[in-house]
């Protein structure tokens, strides 16, 4: 039968193709499974050398199979295998420890430096909020009730006595009894503040407007409190109470706002690249800043929960606060050798 002849005649057959290559695919699959489960360190040097060879062999098989084979199961398997291989071969370049080290030494401060303009804007917004509410409350204490809700104030309002206010700063007799629950308090503060910071970052994409509002509100709250304590002659003490953790916390808040603002402005003014690309680029910088912000808030939470309750001396509080801000500024803004590269 002539028709039968022509079916078997071509020198290339997909069956033979598969017979020749199948061993490579199976070996690559096994290698990938090992890599995924145990990481690159589990591979012997022979296996490591085999990895790119098998990867390229699989990709070439995929190309040939796409052009010649109609076996759907085979095509699906090769596609899945190539994709897995691609992301493993090109994905992992350094160990987690090396990544962490690079992040702490270079990437984190570099990302913070990159948003310096936004940081200044947010800092000014917080300051503006504080000045607004401070001047309003100082001229008419009734304003205070508009700014600070009762449950947040906890009795710290213009009607409170000097003794009561002093006690809330940790100088009074009440301070002693509260000491046992310190770590609970610190943890609560940390999780709460992180939540607020994540919000102020995440809301940034709405052109930064909600972020600015959130930060302005933080300033308002700060200014109102400051005005109440100053009017009772406790301004310096309150400053110390705030300063010990506030430098770290407010800096972190400003940075989270700056990260949000960076995304908002990238969406509004994408510059030379497309809007999506600009947003993605800004998002990555902002993501790095945010990891740093959460770490800073952890420090602030510890300072607030433990440091502030245990150290009641105002000068000492100022000292620690100043030390912290000096540390953060030095860490972020002192230029580093790798910057040039």
């Amino acid at each position, binding site marked *: 039968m002539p*028709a039968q002849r022509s079916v078997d005649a071509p020198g290339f057959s997909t069956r033979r193709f598969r017979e020749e290559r199948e061993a490579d695919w199976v070996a690559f699959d096994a290698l990938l499974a090992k890599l995924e489960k145990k990481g690159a360190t589990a591979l012997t040097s022979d296996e490591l050398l085999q990895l790119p060879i098998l990867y390229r062999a699989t990709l070439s098989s995929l190309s040939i199979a796409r052009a010649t084979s109609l076996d759907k199961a085979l095509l699906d398997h090769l596609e899945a295998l190539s994709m897995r291989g691609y992301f493993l071969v090109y994905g992992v370049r350094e160990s987690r420890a090396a990544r962490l080290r690079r992040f702490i030494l270079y990437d984190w401060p570099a990302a913070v430096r990159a948003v310096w303009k936004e940081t200044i804007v947010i800092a000014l917004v917080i300051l503006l909020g504080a000045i607004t509410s401070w001047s309003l409350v100082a001229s008419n204490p009734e304003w205070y009730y508009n700014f600070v809700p009762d449950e947040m104030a906890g009795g710290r309002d213009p009607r409170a006595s000097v003794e009561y206010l002093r006690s809330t700063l940790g100088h009074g007799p009440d301070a002693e009894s509260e000491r046992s629950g310190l770590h609970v308090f610190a943890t609560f503060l940390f999780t709460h503040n992180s939540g607020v910071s994540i919000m102020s970052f995440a809301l940034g994409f709405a052109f930064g407007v909600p972020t600015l509002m959130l930060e302005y509100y933080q300033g308002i709250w700060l200014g109102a409190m400051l005005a109440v304590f100053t009017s009772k002659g406790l301004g310096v003490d309150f400053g110390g109470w705030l300063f010990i953790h506030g430098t770290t916390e407010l800096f972190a808040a400003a940075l989270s706002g700056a990260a949000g603002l960076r995304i908002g402005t990238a969406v509004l003014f994408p510059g030379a690249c497309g809007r999506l690309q600009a*947003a993605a680029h800004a998002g990555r910088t902002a993501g790095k800043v945010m990891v740093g912000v959460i770490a800073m808030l952890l420090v602030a939470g510890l300072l607030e929960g433990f440091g502030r309750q245990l150290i009641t001396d105002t000068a000492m509080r100022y000292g620690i606060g100043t030390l912290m801000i000096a540390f953060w500024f030095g860490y972020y803004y002192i230029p580093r050798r790798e910057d040039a590269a």
Partner: protein
Amino acid sequence: MTDAATALAKRRAAQAGKVRQFVTPEGVDLELRIASASLRFGALIVDLTLIALVLILFSFGAAYAGFASGSDIVLSIWMLGAFVLRTFWFLGFELGARAATPGKRLMGIRVVARDGGRLTADAVVARNLIRELELFLPMMMIGNGAAEDNVAGWTILAGVIWSLTLSLFLLFNRDRMRMGDLIAGTWVVMAQRAKLDSEIATSEAEGGAMRFSDAELSVYGIYELQELERVLRTRDARAMREVADAIRSKIGRPVAEEDDVFLLSYYRQLKERLERGLLFGKRREDKYASD
């Protein structure tokens, strides 16, 4: 007939719309497929359930330790643990080699950098911190509304709708990116594993029991061939009967052999015919395409 042809073409176009070019440095297009919204939602449900389960177990452990030690340090460990779990569950898993949380693995999807580069930690961080907003803003809106009676129902509704447009952002774009994907420059794509199944009808005895003429083989294209392959691999007797009858009536053969003998022979010879066509640069997509 033309209706069926356009319907098929439409279905194939819809599937092609999900495929994104993704060329490796070796020059091979991996043809990534965007994961559907339902798969994404399923993965999220699985992850949230797992987180809740771990949290419950953790709470039991903490409560037990708390009673045993009588100290409230357990409470703060619990709070910290809950926070870490909620924030880092997605982060930790997506930073791993498979770039997928357990829920995503179950659904066979993974996270990929949109530009084809490697998925960096900052991208994963950005996309997951935004999740916080997408998940919790609608809940917060509802919670706020419930807490404050003086707010009008319409205001709450407006707030919830506004926040839902953020959360459901992925339904409104072609690439099924959520807000976080947009910001981080990532995609979620299909990453299903496919087992290497043995080829069917390889032996002459299986695939050559019957002979079909060229005219009989020329009625079908690649789409039909692969549908036939699927039926043969699942080996469902009823489906095989239906398909065999459809082919028989189409090519005008009487019912003379067992269904599987008939189908295997037809499959093998159709595949050989179409693959030969491929070698000569002729790709016949389906039965409606010209031969």
